[in-house]
């Protein structure tokens, strides 16, 4: 039944010239709209955490930030940032590959992205172990772990989505047509969002 619907949808994609189907936009498909709306809600969630961060830092703040004697490992976080930014390029490469019908490129891109994401998470957990302060240590500790932990949870979810996409890619799913690789495109959009949020978290928490 489902395959019949999908086949009909593809046929209409090529032959349909009139107004869009009922309850469906002609400019965006439902899956992409869904992830877009989800990301909008996530931006608001991160916004609340950033508001707390700036409130603690600017309004409640002690003289120095981070408060003495705490120090943040900027170099390690910088390397982690480079790893996560690279993973956005690899997921983009995976999608460009499948758009051109290159299945090997799709698989390689997805596996590389997954590995880079896992490396990011591993380094962050390792950083937590060696930081020398906990979430109980002042408002600084609480907001640091809340903000970076919230992002880490998003990376974990992104890795789950990428795992599904990778398994499907190795099982022969996905194709060059736009509707045939939504299962990679939607996790790809989510992964880019996670990447952009980390860039903002890194600059705000570690650099400024």
């Amino acid at each position: 039944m489902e395959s019949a619907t999908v086949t009909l949808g593809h046929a209409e994609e090529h032959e349909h010239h009139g107004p869009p189907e009922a309850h469906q936009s002609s400019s965006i498909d439902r899956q992409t709209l869904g992830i877009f709306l989800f990301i909008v809600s996530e931006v608001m969630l991160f916004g609340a955490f950033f508001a707390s961060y700036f409130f603690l830092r600017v309004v409640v703040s002690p003289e120095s930030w981070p408060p003495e004697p705490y120090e943040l490992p900027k170099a390690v976080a910088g390397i982690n940032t480079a790893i996560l930014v690279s993973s956005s390029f690899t997921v983009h490469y995976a999608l460009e590959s499948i758009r051109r019908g290159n299945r090997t490129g799709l698989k390689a891109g997805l596996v590389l992205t997954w590995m880079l994401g896992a490396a990011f998470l591993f380094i962050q957990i390792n950083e937590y172990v060696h930081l020398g302060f906990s979430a109980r240590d002042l408002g600084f500790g609480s907001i640091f772990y809340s903000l970076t932990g919230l992002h880490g949870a998003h990376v974990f979810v992104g890795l789950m989505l990428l795992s599904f996409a990778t398994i499907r890619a190795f099982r022969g799913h996905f194709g060059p047509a736009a509707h045939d690789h939504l299962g990679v495109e939607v996790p790809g959009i989510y992964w880019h969002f996670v990447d952009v949020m980390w860039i903002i978290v890194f600059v705000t928490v570690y650099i400024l």
Partner: protein
Amino acid sequence: MRISEQAVFRWVVIVGVAAVSIIVLTLLTRPLFGALWGLVLVIVASVHGCRWIVRKRREF
């Protein structure tokens, strides 16, 4: 309006370049200047985004 991975990836690159400029300015001067530059970039991006939305509404 097209929302696709390609469009979002472009934003990753734009945000990345903006972040590099903030990091360089902060490391060369003081965090305050980096924060101010970041604020300027956010304002410019917001104005640009508002104009884009108004233009798209007129097209529809």
